[in-house]
């Protein structure tokens, strides 16, 4: 099967088996998936289902052992070398010896952006994540939510069309998470990026996504792909509507069906 040209990410029979001391562990198997430009795709599933592994394969942080995958029509390695994605990790991973603006400048320094343009870009992405005025602070002077926003700004700084986010709000409390989800949707609408978002929260996945990929563990695989019928404009209280609850129910069902536990 040839990947459709509109796809940003196209996986065919993708599999990854880790060799460990206790024998091979199949992290992913038989993943067929197409992600179109401008999609907001959530990957949801219990731990061990391979959702983070899949994201790392897209980012060329892991190499698949089976099947094929293209990112922007090329191999993940070429996509990485072309700096075609920004990656937001589970932890903010800001360098503690750099101020917020210097942290955001890090990818720009590495990619050789001239200093004047660097400054303009830093200001722009700080505004996008609502951190204007915090550029001169060191990471420890900011709260956890602000640090994670700074790390999103860092991923946005070099204007890649694809944003890969690995449970970016997993460690934050509910209220902060709601707020950041709302901001992320606004940001997505403003920038028109393709976003792949790993989460284990059903409401978060349903609230954010145009497409929800439900995964299950042992071995890691895709069990359901749900296309959201929710409008693009989503206030927080959309989570009380029947339509929202219906999608959430389907996600929950998919998760339950995929569970291999016996109890």
């Amino acid at each position, binding site marked *: 099967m040839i990947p459709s040209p509109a796809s940003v990410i196209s996986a065919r029979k993708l599999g990854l088996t880790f060799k460990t001391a206790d024998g091979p562990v199949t992290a992913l198997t038989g993943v067929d998936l197409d992600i179109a430009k401008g999609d907001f795709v959530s990957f949801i599933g219990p731990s061990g289902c391979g959702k983070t592994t899949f994201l790392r394969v897209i980012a*060329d942080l892991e190499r698949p052992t089976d099947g094929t995958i293209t990112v922007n029509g090329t191999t993940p390695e070429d996509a990485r070398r072309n700096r075609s994605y920004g990656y937001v990790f589970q932890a903010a991973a800001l360098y503690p010896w750099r*101020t917020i603006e210097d942290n955001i400048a890090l990818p720009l320094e590495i990619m050789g952006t001239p200093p004047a343009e660097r400054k303009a870009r830093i200001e722009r992405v700080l505004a996008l994540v609502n951190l204007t005025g915090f550029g001169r602070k060191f990471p*420890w002077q900011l709260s956890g939510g602000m640090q994670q926003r700074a790390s999103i700004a860092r991923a946005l700084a070099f204007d890649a069309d694809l944003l890969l986010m690995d449970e970016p709000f997993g460690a934050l409390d509910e209220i902060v998470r709601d707020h950041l989800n709302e901001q992320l949707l606004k940001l997505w609408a403003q920038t028109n990026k393709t976003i792949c978002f790993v989460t284990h929260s059903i409401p978060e996945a349903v609230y954010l996504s145009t497409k929800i990929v439900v995964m299950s563990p042992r071995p890691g695989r895709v069990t359901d792909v749900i296309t959201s019928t929710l409008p693009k404009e989503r206030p927080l209280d959309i989570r009380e509507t029947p339509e929202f609850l219906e999608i959430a129910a389907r996600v929950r069902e998919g998760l339950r069906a995929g569970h291999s536990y016996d109890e």
Partner: protein
Amino acid sequence: MSQTHAMRDKILPVVTILLAVLVFWYAAAAWLNAPFERDTAARAGTTIALTDLLKNTMMQERPVLPAPHQVFAELWDTTVNKPITSKRSLVYHAWVTLSATLLGFAIGTVLGIVLAVGIVHNRAMDRSLMPWVIASQTIPILAVAPMIIVVLNAIGLSGILPKALISTYLSFFPIVVGMVKGLRSPEQIQLDLMRTYDASPAQVLTKLRWPAAMPYLFTSLKVAIAISLVGAIVGELPTGAVAGLGARLLAGSYYGQTVQIWSALFMAAGLAAVLVLVVGMLHAMVLKRMGARP
């Protein structure tokens, strides 16, 4: 308020310990120097009163253990009362040792950092070099120092450099060990981030590994500067005791000048303290610039 706190928390404990050391030292001096006085009296066929005995033990020419005031008088005399160009000035000798210490420390630091960078980036170097680095420190420096001096002399190298190289031999080790650990200290997530930017190994080194290694570097530097001084002093012993604190120690022991030995020892200890203090201040300055939590 804060002054009384400083008084209670810092000055008082230090002064207490200092007084205790002085009392112990005087008692030990009296006890160790007394046999000589009793022998002298016995040879003269007289006995000596306790007050005279105590008084005499504090002012012997060549005491077993000089009393504190004798050492400090000697220190004062050889630092303040002598021109620093004089060979009898302790400042002159301290400078001779210090210059070799600093040169050896500088070479050792550069060498240690270069080796650590190589070890971290090259698997073959990691495997082949690290055992030698460790083995080098198991050889007693006292055995190696004369050979280094003699060999270097044979190829026409003399003066400050052979001594400095003995400092280097000692000081590069903590730098290598500390920097290897420091350069490997970044977390996987920080390295993954660099990979997503397709950063070159040189960029990973300068923008991630190097800054992450700074706390390790300064901890190593503190150890390295202190043992550099030891290396320079040891390096002075086999040179025939021409100049330097090592020479003062050796000359003092040749002629039984215990007061001279002790004052050289104090000078060396003071020098080490100042050097470690300076490195510590540099450390604090760098940490502050790197945004450390106050």
